[in-house]
């Protein structure tokens, strides 16, 4: 079984880091305030607000900041304020030995998928695929998706429901949940951070991709054997998709429907996880039950 880090109590400290793209200070103030309102202390790393070209600091600075948070026993969870691009550049430089002695929740999504997959496959520790700092802005901190992060951190077991979709494959399955951003999953194939998907429930989401590229990446997962032995598949949101001048001729949902049509396991489409407000916290590495019925879909922690 995967190791679940201890849940947080009031007064526990959450460390904030930016291991990938740069985020200006004003963009994470609401997040910090909300974490305080939730009863947690925060410790701001050196990278949030710091800038080195595109990145929140150079590779050394980002590595050092995240490493410090991983090693500091006082920090009970690490929230990555932003994704973007950059975790893949530093992942091999991180030392998880202290983290494994006292695991803590690591929070984020998008580029943070690299950390989720790496930590799951190398350390067998669960992480939190969940909203980051920008999601708290513009009253986002009031919505159920940001609140689902609070629930996840404090040990309330998730029980998410979403409407039925015409492409769903009905059925029920239990298994360890893995997944994240499709482009990153594709970039990790063949590396030491790659995940084994056999007997797992896989979830995928993406943003800003061309439809043909989603097709290509799903073909990659399929041809590299990552879709055969699943217990279930959760297709999240694919937002802001681009199309080529000559239209691809299918929506992303149709592309995925065709690629997985031969599989018998339950598949659900349009699950609220991805690069938009509707983005539930999911524990990568924890056990969930996926129930896909004609009347609707539930994904609940076992």
């Amino acid at each position, binding site marked *: 079984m995967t190791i679940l880090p201890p849940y947080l109590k009031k007064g526990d400290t959450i460390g904030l880091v930016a291991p990938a*793209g740069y985020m200006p200070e004003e963009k994470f103030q609401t997040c910090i305030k909300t974490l305080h309102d939730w009863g947690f202390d925060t410790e701001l790393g050196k990278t949030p607000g710091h800038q*080195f*070209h*595109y*990145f929140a600091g150079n590779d050394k600075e980002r590595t050092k900041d995240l490493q410090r948070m991983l090693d500091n026993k006082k920090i009970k969870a690490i929230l990555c304020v932003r994704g973007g*691009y950059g975790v*893949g*550049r530093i992942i*091999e430089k991180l030392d998880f030995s202290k983290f494994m002695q006292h695991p803590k929740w690591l929070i984020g999504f998008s580029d943070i998928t690299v950390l989720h997959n790496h930590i799951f496959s190398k350390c067998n520790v669960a992480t939190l695929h969940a909203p980051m700092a920008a999601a708290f802005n513009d009253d986002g901190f009031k919505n159920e998706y940001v609140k689902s992060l609070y629930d996840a951190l404090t040990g309330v077991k998730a029980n998410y429901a979403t409407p039925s979709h015409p492409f769903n494959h009905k059925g029920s399955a239990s298994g360890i949940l893995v997944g994240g951003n499709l482009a990153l999953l*594709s*970039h*990790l*194939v*063949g*590396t*030491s*951070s*790659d995940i084994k998907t056999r007997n797992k429930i896989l979830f995928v989401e993406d943003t800003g991709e061309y439809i*043909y590229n989603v*097709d*290509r*990446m799903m*073909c*990659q997962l399929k*041809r*590299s*054997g*990552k879709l055969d032995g699943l217990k279930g598949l959760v297709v999240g949101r694919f937002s802001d998709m681009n199309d*080529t001048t*000559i*239209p*691809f*001729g*299918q929506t992303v949902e149709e592309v995925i429907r065709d690629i997985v049509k031969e599989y018998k396991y339950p598949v659900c489409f349009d699950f609220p996880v991805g690069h938009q407000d509707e983005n539930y916290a999911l524990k990568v590495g924890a056990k969930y039950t996926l129930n896909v019925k004609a009347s609707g879909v539930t994904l609940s922690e076992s």
Partner: protein
Amino acid sequence: MDRKNFLQSTIPLLATTGAFVKDQTRDLESKKFPPYLKPGATIGITCPSGHLKMEEALPCINKMEAWGFKVVPGRTIGIRDFTFAGTDEERARELQQMIDDDGIDTIMLGRGGYGAVRIIDKIDFSKFIKKPKWIIGFSDATVLHLHLNCKLGIPSIHSKMCNSFPEDESTETPEQADSIDSIRRCLLGEKMVYTAPTLQQNRIGISKGRLVGGNLSIIQMLCGSRSQIRTDDTILFIEDVGEYLYKLDGMMWNLLRSGKLNRLKGLIIGAFRIKEDDPGEEFGKSMYEIVMEKVGKFNYPVCFDFPVGHVLVNYGLKCGMMHRLEVKQDSAQLFSLQ
């Protein structure tokens, strides 16, 4: 970027089938080489990826006929299923038929785009392995190259396709014309000599190995699949188009972290038509820095700005065949040895 010095004169060598110099070093895994062509040979054209109009194929057809070959245009030219040259079934069927047809000596692909990965597993290569023929193309055709070179051990030709032959030859630069003519020379079995610009970013060295590579996005997306690239003891070449620097960086990390850059004999960087960073999202490293950062700890020669890729001057390369890469202080050249 200035791309002046390219192919120097090649020494015509009338190679006939099987007249290769067998390399004494760790030999190609190739089981069998496709025979080089003789004048009068038949070239079939098929489109396994994006759709192509017949008028777009004509300059290429005319050119190949002028070279003395017979050309058989496939039915996938001119048909269209959205972005594709027909449905997956139609494209797979025609590629299969051209692979199996004894009357077709070589297959020229119509166009890249997207679609080869959708049909590659539908193709039965059992006859092809016994009687291989040259398959010619690039970009999305990298799916075929890698499947052929790395999975089946059969060489193929990475070069311009039908849609990159100019309609009006008078507008061609000499280098462009020469790179189109290089397809003919590859097919006839000439030993090729390619010249890249001499750049201070290059890493000096001389080495010998089988040439593999193609479009970096495709190489990356085949990772983990049965068609994935195998780079040990090879000279790897990569090119790409329309990607952001950060995407290039991510793909290079994937190659490095999956062990595909450790045991190269050499690295050739073709044209990378990089998409400009969005304002405020400047990546801060050049393409040269991104590459050297990944391969800095290795010792093999590295040659930048090699004339291959989505550019006018895109030379035909015999993938899967032995080559010698010579990167020196004052020159950078690649020689085909077979």
